[in-house]
């Protein structure tokens, strides 16, 4: 069986769904961040896949590189936030941090 675009998209879809599920269900903020990485990587797969099977150009790969860099930066900021949350609450349980409750 020839591995085609469809497979990549399915993999990427599964990865995205797993990430979304992780964000929605995990309590630990670190786990939520990690699930977010999954979603970002699923998008990366899409970029790469469309780049390979689409017009054979480099744009998709460059976009993927950007996303990786972005992810790194985002994690740096997000971990700093998590660290601060931990200092205030002494835990990082996302469902218990509901200060924004109306």
């Amino acid at each position, binding site marked *: 069986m020839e591995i085609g675009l469809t497979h990549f998209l399915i993999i990427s879809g599964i990865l995205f769904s797993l990430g*979304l599920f992780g964000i929605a269900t995990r309590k630990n903020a670190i786990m939520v961040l990690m699930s977010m990485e999954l979603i970002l990587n699923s998008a990366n797969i899409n970029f790469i896949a469309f780049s390979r099977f689409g017009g054979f150009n480099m744009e998709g790969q460059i976009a993927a590189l950007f996303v990786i860099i972005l992810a790194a930066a985002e994690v740096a900021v997000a971990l700093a936030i998590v660290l601060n949350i931990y200092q205030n609450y002494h835990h990082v349980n996302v469902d218990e941090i509901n200060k924004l409750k109306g």
Partner: protein
Amino acid sequence: MTPEMLLNLSIVILLIPILDFAFLIFFGKKLGRASGFIGTSVLGIDLILALIVAFVRLTQYPNETMQQYKFDWINLGNTSVTLGIGIDNLTAIMLIVVTLISFLVHLFSMEYMREDSRFSRFYAYLGLFTFSMLGIVIANNFLNMFIFWELVGVSSYLLIGFWYEKDSAANAGKKAFIVNRIGDLGFLIGLMIIYSTYGTFIFEDVFGKIHAGILPFNSGFWLTLMGILVFGGAIGKSAQFPLHVWLPDAMEGPTPVSALIHAATMVAAGVYLTARVYPMFTADALLFIAYIGALTAFIAATIAITQVDFKRVLAYSTVSQLGYMVMGLGVGAFTSGFMHLVTHAWFKALLFLASGSVIHAMHHSMHKAHNHDMDPQDIRNMGGLRKTMPITYITFLFATIAISGIPFTSGFLSKDGILAGTLAFGELSGHWFIPIAGFGAAAITAFYMFRLTIIAFHGKPKTSIAEHTHENNGFITIPLIILAVLSLWFFYSMNPLNPDEGWFHQRTQAPQSAVPASLMWNFMNPEKEINANENINVSNNRLHTISNELNKTGIPAFLVTHTLVSQPKVETEFKETLHHAHVPAMILSLIVAISGIILSFVYYQFKVYDPDSIVNLYPWLYKGSFNKWFFDEIYQATFINGTIGLAKVGAWFDFNVIDGIVNFVAAIGRGLGHITGIFDFHIIDGLVNLSAKISGWLGTALRKPQSGTIQAYLVLTVLGLVVLILLFI
């Protein structure tokens, strides 16, 4: 001495007493008794300067018109208010009168007020009074005169109420001030008419415009009324009927004050004013003045007969003599009226100072006897003072003889002139009431003055207090002696029976009248004679005047002189009749005076008849006189109660009608307020609350999804996205 120097010197005379006042009012307390010496010596300097000014004016410039300074006080567009001062013969004589009596009273008070706790304050007030009085004297316009007129009123008020711890003194001060206001209101209205008609206050300019035929509202009636209104000021200040009621009460002040203000100078200010503005009086105004004077002279004399308070007898005598002066001016005996002002000033100041001497001695005697309940002013407690106080007695007797009008005294010269004037006036105008009142009052004056002398000084002492009185020291007796000497005839005229040739008469002739001929008395109109023989002379004189004295408006000033030399020689019918009336008047006045004196000796000295028998014969006459003809009671019943009643009606109206309307309007406002309040509370507030509640409900409803849990939001977002995708694809 140049006229400028004369004027500058008179300004200095005016200012010295006010500096004295300012100094004593600020530093008097520290100085204590020294303030008396300061006040007296300052007034002594003032007196010397006044004597110099008067002497120069009366010897070097007796024939000139008023020498004066004028300056603009206020400039308002085209109009200006001009003030100034001026010196003429009347002023010069008045300067001596005011400063000399003021000086003597200062001297007298050194002893009389010795024990008073506000000794320096007293001297300060005397200085203020002297300043104000001098201001009246040297005014050359109505406004200056009015300003100082009111200042005199203030100082009179301060001095009457000097012993304000006594209610009677405080009330007397208020009464004098308020009664004077009534007359001054007339004066003020007169001034308004003058200024609105003539646009100036200067005497000679006003007279000039009257002379040029400009009349207020173009009617002679208003000119008469203007004169009467200005004379209203004199009615108040000179205590003429019907405003004479304040003067007897003013005797609550210290006796030196009574002598200075309420006998010699201030009350004469009204007479001086009348003399000063004499050219503007029409025949009707002069008749009014003559009647007021005659009524005052007679009524006050009848009251004086029965009074028992030493000073009150003298007070009513003052009112009566002021009536004489006013009557003299009113009938046209200008010179004698003014002369009576001067001669009366000496002998009435003497009478009051002598009464002060008696009261002072009585006080001391009471003090020694430890008797503090007796009235030291009641003549029924005196008697026999002739022996214990000889100097006071003799000087008092001098003044009594002078006021009774016996020859060889100054009083005879002036009084006789006035009576001759009334006689001539009665003959020419037919108003015989005036001479009858004049001669009647002369008889009564002689009677009551000798009654006072006999009861107080003759006979045996009626109380032990009177028996132990002693003559006072030099501070009191020297002024008495000086004034007694001044009551002799030779100061005014060498001829003791006829003053016509004396210096006084030569320098104080009646000024020509400025009013149109149709408004003059026929018999005082000089034109009648002039038309016949001296027409040319007069028109030349007028031309001369016009070329010399054109003022701003082009109307020549009416120059007032008081000598015959510079006036065209005019012989009016009145003067001729006056000349003829002189001898009969003299004989008649001597008869009435001597009969009055004899009567009082019969009743009080030799007691041939008992005075009580007359009292029993005509009890209502006695009661009327003793109670001052009930003037105070009548005023109390009519004007005072009327005013209070009117005030009560006004208060009732205010309380019930005005307040009712106000309260009614307020009630309407309150009712409207209630209605709008209900509307506000229930409808407006309801709407506001409703919208607030809706927001509240919405907020509560929308709070629910805001759980604050990020994961819940995420799930909802995803669900929403899914829904959107399902909807659009």
